[in-house]
């Protein structure tokens, strides 16, 4: 009966190591530097937004189960950081690469006061 503790202990150690790695987030997406210029295409970003973000933020960013984005004065570095790291129930990395830049450009545009 004592042998049964061996797999349980090994499993527990692996779970602990996994937890430590997850808390460390060793490859955490880097936040964009303040003032990072928006290199995306807002028109294309609107399409990407409709595909990936509109379900929660509304078709035009008016809000839904997720917060409204229109007229909220967001800057590119803040939006980029939120897209990469996620926030609340929104997972990070929903859009990446050029899609990310395009969505950021679109969101910054609709958030203008």
């Amino acid at each position, binding site marked *: 009966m004592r042998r049964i503790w061996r*797999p349980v202990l090994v499993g527990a150690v692996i779970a602990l190591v996994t937890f430590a790695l997850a808390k460390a987030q060793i490859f955490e*997406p880097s936040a964009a530097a303040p003032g990072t210029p928006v290199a995306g295409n807002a028109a294309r970003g609107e399409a990407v937004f409709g595909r*990936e973000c509109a379900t929660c933020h509304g078709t035009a960013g008016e809000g839904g189960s997720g917060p409204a984005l229109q007229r909220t004065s967001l800057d590119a570095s803040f939006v980029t950081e939120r897209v990469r790291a996620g926030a609340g129930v929104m997972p990070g*990395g929903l859009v990446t690469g050029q899609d990310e830049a395009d969505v950021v450009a679109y969101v910054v545009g609709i958030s203008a006061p």
Partner: protein
Amino acid sequence: MPPLADVNETYTDIITTVFSSTIAAKAWLATAALAFVVVQLVTAARIYGRLSFLPERGATIASVHRWSGRTAFLLTLPVFFHCVTILGFQTPGARVAIHSLAGTFVYGVFAAKVLIVRDRSLPGWTLPVAGLSLASTLVVIWLTSSLWYFTNVRFGF
């Protein structure tokens, strides 16, 4: 850009050659892994003498069981990499908290199950309990991530 951030960018570049985003990739890889978990459960049931409509117990069933397990494990590796090293342990809400907790335990349960398989001196009930625990953990992970993505974000690659 710091070297560690390069890893994230490189991973994202590789994944997005096939999928629209890293999240979509995870949703589909986890779904594929879950399909192999179902194969695992069915073949395990046959090995234990259940589901008699399936082919006779023997080398084929055992081989399918082993390879479906190995394939499921391999499919979870990119998911594990992205979740653990990039997104990390988060608790902003019940869904993500449950997902983070189950994800933390899954490889521990997997390791325990593999050790139990190889130790023939353990009581007979330990293996099905370990197998069902592993399958249940993976189902919880899938429900709180892939299913959520398919129903709340989009059903696509």
